[in-house]
């Protein structure tokens, strides 16, 4: 078939090839594999691979100095990786054209203090090569709550207002992929809620988002998937359901027999805390584990006083991942 199309006259081969390519699913919004970066003697990022699908909201979590911002900068072609590959919207990051449909709010956000907010947006639209009308630019400023300050110089803006402006800059050129590095670090609670709404709105429009934030609750509410970085490596990654899949049951029981204890241990790990027992429920539970366990315990003569489902928060899970990492490192050293 390939030979046929190659020899076909009148550019039919070209047409066939273009049909073949257009039938392919679009490349991910961001993709990187085996990224490494060293700053002098310190390794900042080691063998990081991750992917942000089209229309997907991915959270990047990790302690200070985990390499989150460096990974973001390598994805955007602002920092040269020592090894590894990165692609944006199907193009290598080193190619400036890869960033044509990308919006970025840096962690260190500063905008030309001698320009007005509207002029900053106009500049970014020009540099992006886009065709965004004045009205749409003004709308973008209103979206981030700066509608009334369009003509004011950025030099007179507070940190929070500059961060809002940064958000408008990231959104103004109709991006297909938005990178937000600590987008709420300077914002008040109201501003944080605004950012959350904006990210959710982007998701409904099918815009992919990579969100780096210390506010785990924020990430938990808006992200489809989470990547946890620790000391420059990917410590965990998966959907929230995968990461938080592990649930627990808290039970208050009396009249525990050895047979009942065996039944409990068969469900999952058991921790005792005074009168309360905590049992881990398997991740693949389809909702029958708790009623089955209670029915069996009652049948074994145990008196059941209370049963409470416990949901593990992302914060607990994250701390668990980071502590496990620290413990295994300590184990390797000793």
């Amino acid at each position: 078939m390939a030979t046929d199309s190659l020899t076909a006259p009148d550019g039919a081969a070209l047409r066939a090839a273009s049909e073949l390519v257009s039938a392919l699913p679009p490349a991910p919004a961001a993709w990187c594999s085996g990224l490494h970066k060293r700053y002098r003697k310190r390794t900042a990022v080691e063998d990081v691979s991750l992917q942000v699908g089209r229309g997907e909201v991915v959270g990047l979590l990790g302690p200070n100095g985990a390499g989150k911002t460096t990974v973001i900068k390598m994805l955007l072609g602002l920092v040269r990786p020592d090894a590894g590959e990165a692609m944006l919207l199907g193009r290598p990051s080193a190619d400036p054209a890869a960033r044509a449909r990308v919006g970025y709010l840096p962690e260190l956000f500063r905008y030309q203090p001698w320009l007005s907010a509207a002029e900053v947006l106009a500049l970014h639209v020009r540099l992006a090569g886009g065709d965004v009308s004045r009205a749409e630019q003004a709308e973008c400023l209103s979206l981030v709550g700066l509608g009334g300050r369009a003509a004011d110089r950025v030099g007179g803006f507070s940190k929070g207002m500059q961060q809002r402006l940064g958000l408008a800059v990231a959104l103004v050129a109709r991006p297909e992929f938005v990178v937000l590095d600590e987008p709420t670090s300077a914002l008040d609670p109201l501003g944080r809620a605004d950012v959350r709404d904006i990210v959710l709105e982007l998701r409904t429009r099918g815009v992919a988002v990579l969100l780096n934030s210390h506010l785990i609750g924020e990430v938990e509410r808006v992200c489809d998937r989470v990547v946890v970085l620790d000391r420059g490596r990917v410590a965990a990654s998966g959907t929230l359901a995968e990461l938080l899949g592990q649930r627990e049951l808290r039970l208050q029981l009396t009249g525990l027999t050895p047979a009942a204890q065996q039944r409990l241990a068969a469900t999952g790990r058991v921790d005792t805390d005074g009168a309360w027992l905590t049992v881990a429920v398997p991740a693949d539970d389809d909702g029958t584990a708790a009623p089955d366990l209670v029915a069996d315990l009652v049948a074994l003569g145990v008196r059941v006083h209370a049963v409470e489902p416990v949901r593990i928060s992302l914060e607990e899970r994250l701390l668990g991942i980071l502590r496990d990492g620290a413990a295994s490192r300590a184990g390797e050293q000793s």
Partner: protein
Amino acid sequence: MTTSDTRPAPDRPAPPGASTLRTVLTVAALTLREASRRRVLLALAALTVALLVLSAWGFSRLAGEALTSGEARLTASIVLNLVMFGFSLVAALGTAFLAGPTLAGETESGIALAVLSRPIRRSAFLLGKWLGLVAFGSGFVVVAGLAEILVVRATVDYWPPSPVTALALLAAQTAVLLTLTVLLATAVSPMASGVIAVGLFCTTWVAGVVGAIGTALGNDAVAQVGAVSRVLLPTDGLWRGAMNAFQDPSAIVQFGGADQGAGAFPFLSVAPLSAAYLAWSAVWVLMIGGLAAAAYIRKDL
């Protein structure tokens, strides 16, 4: 884990970003706007007006003296060169301290992060900055220089032999110094790049004067100092060419001839610029500019 290790297939061609020319012009216009909105413009304007008024007063006093026409032309030439040197120094200071903040300062503060994450080439961005700065610096020396020429004409009725060449060479001198500052600003802090550039500018000028004294005294070793420094940093060479075009041709003879002391005098120039030296200056700008672009492209932001 959903990450695939195979490289994704290339996507449909991405929409083209801003064309390189559009980027260069946008950044150049932005740099000019920055210059016009920062205090540096106000400071430049104040210094320029002060120099113009001072020289107008000086020249009008000169017109009152009983001088022969030859003496008057010699004095006008020397004082004109002196004032022009003042302008070129003001331009050097102004642009050097503008280039530092606009490049190194933006990298330090984070302004560059948002701008360079746009679909633009860093070399186009740097060229735009350079073009904006050169337009600003050259515009300043040409406007201020022309105003001074008119002041001289009005007060002592002296008109330099080739004012266009002279002003063009002054502008070229500013461009050369700016290129050096841009290179420095890709590597060191904003303040340091300005200080080093102005320091080198002054050093080359002093080396040029020392070399001229060496030539006048017939000491080749000392004369070499000026020749070598003029090749390393072409600001002084271009400045001497500009002086030659500002001064009256008879001034050297009036002063006692090229080998009698006029050559050693810092505000007279004995010879016009050679085409070879002009070509070298252009090559120098291309070389240093290319070096700056190479350094900037490799920089981790």
